[in-house]
């Protein structure tokens, strides 16, 4: 029984994947440069920098999907992220959380 609970707990942890939302990416950098930079913090599952098909430029925004919160945490801990000499703005992608449901942990203990 405990074994399945342990597995359940593991599964739960992997549902909401941590994502870094990156802004102010210089035009010279694309997804591969972003990936290259952030690889030092952990395993990157996915990295996207969408390009505008109308202009051929990206809009300076990108998303880096990490595998664990720890990795994202490490990214956010670092004071400065610089690609091609330009300082990036990095923040955790806010997930949609149900309002007023912050302390749900407590009730699960039954």
């Amino acid at each position, binding site marked *: *029984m*405990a*074994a*399945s*609970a*342990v*597995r359940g*707990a*593991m599964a739960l*942890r992997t549902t909401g994947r941590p994502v870094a939302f990156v802004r102010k990416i*210089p*035009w*010279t950098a*694309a997804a591969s*440069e972003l990936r290259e930079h952030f690889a030092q*913090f*952990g*395993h990157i599952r996915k990295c996207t920098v969408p*390009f505008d*098909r*109308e*202009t*051929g*430029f*990206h809009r300076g925004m990108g998303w880096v999907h*990490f*595998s*664990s919160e*720890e*990795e994202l945490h490490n990214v956010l801990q670092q004071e400065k992220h610089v690609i*091609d*000499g330009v300082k990036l703005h990095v923040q955790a992608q806010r997930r949609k959380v*149900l*309002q*007023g*449901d912050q302390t*749900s*942990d407590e*009730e699960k*203990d*039954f």
Partner: protein
Amino acid sequence: MAALLRSARWFLRPGAAPRFPISLRLLAGGPGRPHAALCRPAARAGPVARGLLSQDRLYAIAAEKNYRQEEPTSQRRNASQFDWALMRLDNSVRRTGRITKTLLQKVFDNACVSGCPGGNQALLLLRSCGSLLPELKSSERTELAHRIWDKLQKLGTVYDVSHYNALLKVYLQNEYKFSPTDFLAKMEEANIQPNRVTYQRLIAAYCNVGDIEGASKILGFMKTKDLPVTEAVFSALVTGHARAGDMENAENILTVMREAGIEPGPDTYLTLLNAYAEKGDIDHVKQTLEKVEKSDLYLMDRDLLQLIFSFSKAGYPQYVSEILEKITYERRYIPDAMNLILLLVTEKLEDTAFQVLLACPVSREDGQSDFGSFFLRHCVTMNTPAEKLIDYCKKLKEAQMHTSPLQFTLQCALLANKTDSAKALMKALKEEGFPVRTHYFWPLLVGHQKEKNVQGIVEVLKGMHEIGVNPDQETFINYVFPSFDSVKSARAVLQENGCLPESNIFSLAELRCEALNGNLDYVLSFLESNTLSFSFGSLRGSLILGFRRCVDINLWSKITELLYKDGRYCQEPPGPTEAVGYFLYNLIDSMSDSEVQAKEEHLRQYFHQLKEMNVKIPENIYRGIRNLLDSYHVPELIKDVNMLVEREKTDSRKIMQLTSSDLESTLEKLKAENQPIRDVLKQLIVTLCSEENMQKALELKAKYESDMAVGGYAALINLCCRHDNAEDALNLKQEFDRLDSSAVLDTNKYVGLVKVLGKHGKLQDAINILKEMKEKDVLIKDTTVLSFFHILNGAALRGETETVKQLHEAIVTLGLTKPSTTISSPLVTLYLEKDDLPAALKAAIDLYEKYKILPRIHDVLCKLVEKGETDLIQKAMDFVSQEQGEMTMLYDLFFAFLQTGNYKEAKKIIETPGIRARPARLQWFCDRCISSNQVETLEKLVELTQKLFECDRDQLYYNLLKLYKINGDWQRADAVWNKMQEENIIPRGKTLRLLAEILRNNNQEVPFDVPELWYEDEKHSLNSSAPSPVETNIHKELLNACQWKKSKDAYNIFLKAQKQNVVFNSESYISLIKLLLVKDSFIQAMQVKDFAETHIKGFTLNDAANSLLIITQVRRDYLKEALKTLKTTLDLKQTPSRIAVTRLIQACALKGDLENIQAIQKMVNGLEDSIGLSNMVFINNIALAQIKNNNIDVAIENIENMLTSGNQTMEPQYFGLAYLFRKVIEEQLEPAVEKISIMAERLANQFAVYKPVTDLFLQLVDSGKVDDARALLQRCGAIAEQTPIFLVFCIRSSRRPGKSPALKSLLELIPELTEKEEAYSSVMKSYVLDNDVSSAKALYENLSAKNMKLDDLFLKRYAVLLKNAGESVPFVEPPESFEFYAKQLKELRESPL
């Protein structure tokens, strides 16, 4: 001339100040005041001493005029327009001293769109066309001024003298050559009297071209009119003489001035200086400058900058450095210098511009801020040669003014689509050692793509090759292929031009592109003949889209098989099983539920073919697919996917979960030992059901019938239903009832039974099930009703008359759902399918008479029209018009004719006099056409309704565009645009946006300005009463504030709206209330709620808002209200959130309010599953309430009974009392703690139920009562063996900060736990989280002393902790990421050892 001038003094009023004191001049140019950029020489001829001063005054005057003259009501819109324009332009001038062309154009367009721009707006626009536009050539500026002039005149703007003067000023600033006499004639024609300013400017115009004679003429004219002569006139004359080549006389003017009583001021001197500069006479310039210095006059940096311009413009750049030396770098210097630099670049004097740029005093130390970008950008715009650009870039970098000038310049070149410059810049970048990346070329490709310029594309590709950049797949797919008719022709053209890459990139791009387009034939043959190796993953996304666009299932299967079996495609570690499984998951996930439902047969075929091909997928992925299918309401497909599960591996990978064979042997063992087998049997049956092994499950049931439990039956019944086994399903159901007649299945299982019984003709049994559903009050959800419909419809399609009739009758009369067009339509379908039209019509009419519903009347009519059944049509029409009115009948007939292609008849109907638009019915038909992609029918509808009274044409065209969008038909969409103009329809914003989207998606230019997207609820577009603009605005504001969670703003907007009697819709109020509740503004939220309730009929909060309200009420301790809210919520058939209900129950418990907890329990009875409420919530809190009421013994007795009696409601291992224990400990209810402890120990010692005592133990540890915990452990040693419970505790605790002391204590109490991997890993995680280095060290040493093999994740965590604490790491830190090791560990655990 001199005489004329000498007399000029008499024009001056005595005592008038002839010149401005220095202080005023400084003020005019001081920081923070808006003023113009550098003024060109001619600008000095302004009416007031400094052109600068006049600049900002004009803005001010214009604004003032606006407020005074225009009526506040009728002109409000115009006024706000003007304010906006003024603000934008003024801001620009204030900040930078210039205006960009785009900004001016935007303000201009806006003024035009608004209808008739006011005179002030015209003035504003005109006067912006001069020196405020340094980035535009003088000729272009004048052209722009003329364009504005003509356009506004056409729009009806009335010009006065101020406009003519403004135009003159622009001419002067732009050195535009024109005939002053013609100008005057034009004014006369327009019946406008020139004023003093006009004459002054005309004098300046003559002087600019050195025409002293002309100037004198005007001057004489001024004299006759007694107009005063100012310094500006004298300054103009200085220029006049100088340009006529007479420097002596120019200098003389100063003497004349003095004689006339006007002392020459800095403007006059500057004019003189400029005159010398134009001649390249540096000596005189220096002398004059010295003279000025000696006098009490003062020249500003801006004046010197102008001098620089004069020198370089006249071809004497060699003197620029001398003037630069004299600059003092005042505070406002930089913007002025920037404007000069831009102006010089515009005049193609970029070298001088660069010289000025380099001299700019900018901080270069930090090496961060870039200066000079504006210069580089403008150089690119003005087509400065690439070599020069590159040279500037190098020098800027050397001077440390700019960190990445080359990259920036390249960006500008790309944005401006300057291919040649871009190429040269990229080469330079490469030479400098910077990377040149593939996506640098995309903007260039986009430029050509828009024009489908194949040659241009080829040139870019060649350029890439030259620079040594290889196009990647994205480049081909997104930017190259769209310009060609087909990928094939792209290949041919590229080959011809020698720019087909040698690598396989092109082939792969081609493959992906074909896959995307659903060309699976190509994909298959490619994959078969392919010699390249690439991973399946890279093709997945494109292939999924392709699959969905292609209906050939054989191709699906063949491709999947190939990818599965061919080693070329699945070489990576997870292997083909994972890859294909993942692919299937993604394929289904990417489809919508309706798509999956529609393709159910296709998918089934596909899965069966895969099975034949021996394709396998992993169990865990199967489970994901199962969940997807379940949520799509196609559980019938589950068994088809299940066939693909890879069994062998399943057994080995699930070490922890018992497999069916394990369970079976356990069962036999237990049986042999004569022990109870109930639980194991149930588990085994459930497992077999999940493996879809019906045969085996049934056998087992037969063998151990006496030990069957309710749960086992439920699973088995469902399995039989899924396998279409009515016989066994029914038998099982009967056995189930015998076992426990009060037991209730869940809704889906009942529906499954009804379905399978109905299908096999066991009608009475099916009806009995329906009756049971009613009796047992089974929850009927929307999906349940939908399932009923599908059951009936399936039977109708099979032509089973009795089944449809009887089941429909039972469902409706039992009241399981109300009769509706949906649920009753199968009764009509039945006959339509049999082509028995009289019966179909009769069925519809009967339904109307019984239930007032008329299902499928449209389809019945269509069939009647098709068959030409005139009599029946007449009968139907008589009935409809009698029952529902003539209009409804006409619409029914109209739609039937349209649908069947009888357009002539349709036209006659819709032209019936008196018929008017019924938006809802029209929309219904539009939606129908869109969903079944009937282009022609919809086009006809739009065409025929052109003259229909009150028809919302825009809405109909919008629908048409929606359909065109689906089909990607931009030509027809474009035609709609023209038709709308023909019809004089003003399109709504959403229509324009949709049209623009279609055009853009198809690489067409959008011929209009696309309105900005705002919060617009499309649903409301059909509403007849359009809200006033004020209402819409305030509504937008509210939604905006709610979206950004600005509760105060939102609330204020609400108050404002309340005052203005504006009422929003329910949704808006609900959003606002929710926001206020979240922000704990309870009183305000209630105020909004009251208002909404009194102003909107039937206003109620939705589930989410009610849940939040309950939470807030609980927080404020308004428990009675909270209970009321809960009751309201449930009465409204809403589902409150689990957290809201739990909070309320807990609050009651802490008050000892047992009664209300039980009341809540009754209220939510039957809803526990949908709320997600565990029974334990009630057990814990009822006990807590009893304890609070000092009924400790009752509480304990209840719990003990539950755990020891035969009919357990909850299995002991899930019987968690942690909450109760924690609260009792927290609240220091000592007697209760003691008695609970005794109970827990008794349960353990006498009944071998260890969960409560272990929970208690853990709660003691958790709350720091280690000694009590230790004592409990000593009394009840079995606690130490409850490892699973501990592990769960460890894992959960490790996720929260601050739990490390508890975990540490736990390890001390139960030292054996240290050796459990889950435990020590969690504890280390917790130490890291709490930054407890010493405990972590102790743990590590303890474990290493025992020679435990520690996994890398553990070591990594420990190492990071040590490093962060600045300590050395005593081992080699695992180099990979956390994720890497976490994944590794997971795999290790799952794979067999």
